[in-house]
């Protein structure tokens, strides 16, 4: 490999980390919102209060 291998490896490693972070964040955030929505629906949060 070249004398600049460390620069090339660092560029690929940092890009991989940032992309992995983006994917993980997207997955976890979606799961959290899905769970919160399921819990609210199970509690009947969408029902309106009775009038009168």
């Amino acid at each position, binding site marked *: *490999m*070249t004398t*600049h*291998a460390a*620069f*090339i490896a*660092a*560029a*690929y490693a*940092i*890009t991989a980390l*940032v*992309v992995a*972070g*983006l*994917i993980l*964040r*997207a997955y976890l*955030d*979606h799961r959290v*919102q*899905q769970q*919160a*929505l399921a819990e*609210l*629906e199970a*509690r009947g*949060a*969408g*029902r*309106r*209060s*009775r009038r009168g």
Partner: protein
Amino acid sequence: MIRDLANPSRFMAYSGRLLPWLAGAAALALGVGLYMTWFTVPADYQQGETVRIMYLHVPAAWLSLFFYATMAASALGTLVWRHPLADVSQKAAAPIGAAFTFICLVTGSLWGKPMWGTYWQWDARLTSMLVMLLIYLGIMALWRAIEEPSRAARAVSILTLVGAVNVPIVKFSVDWWNTLHQPASVFRLGGPTIHSSMLIPLLVMALGFTLLGVTLHLSGMRTEILRRRVRTLTILEAERLDAQAA
């Protein structure tokens, strides 16, 4: 089509079907692109092996501008046409654009050290790109600062459109000023100046990055729609409990 997708439930149904195909296409394009980058691309006659950083740096730079343009178009959608998904698109695009801008700056810096002898230079291209990252971060902070989504969307739209002035500055900085950064070598009037053995892998990587970005954007929009449903249901539940207590 755009009016059809204005209904969030319809958008969730369409995007849910599209997402696995987009993710698969992104993985395939990135796999092929990385294979070409590591195993078939020749070393540059001047830059040697460090030219392999270009296959990350250039697509990241393009996507940084692409997502800012997406946010600016969505900002117009929010302010002018009041499209119900425009601000959802704006909010989902910001962290993805910021991440690609960060990748562009870091990989550029790691490429600059062996080629220019420095990690950083306050020249027009590098500085305008740093300004773009700061604008992205400011937009993300503003989204968090205002709780009510439609009020936040209006404020963010104005900031996004003001910040859009920086997009042509980034693109044309290498033509307008005397910079250390090289001028455009792919999207230029006289055609690309890169040999096809390097251009094709670069375009494959750009396609992979774009598909990945669009996948993440759609996924982020779906999550934002869920977040707003959660917010609405939480408010409704609180109102119902208040009414019962009264």
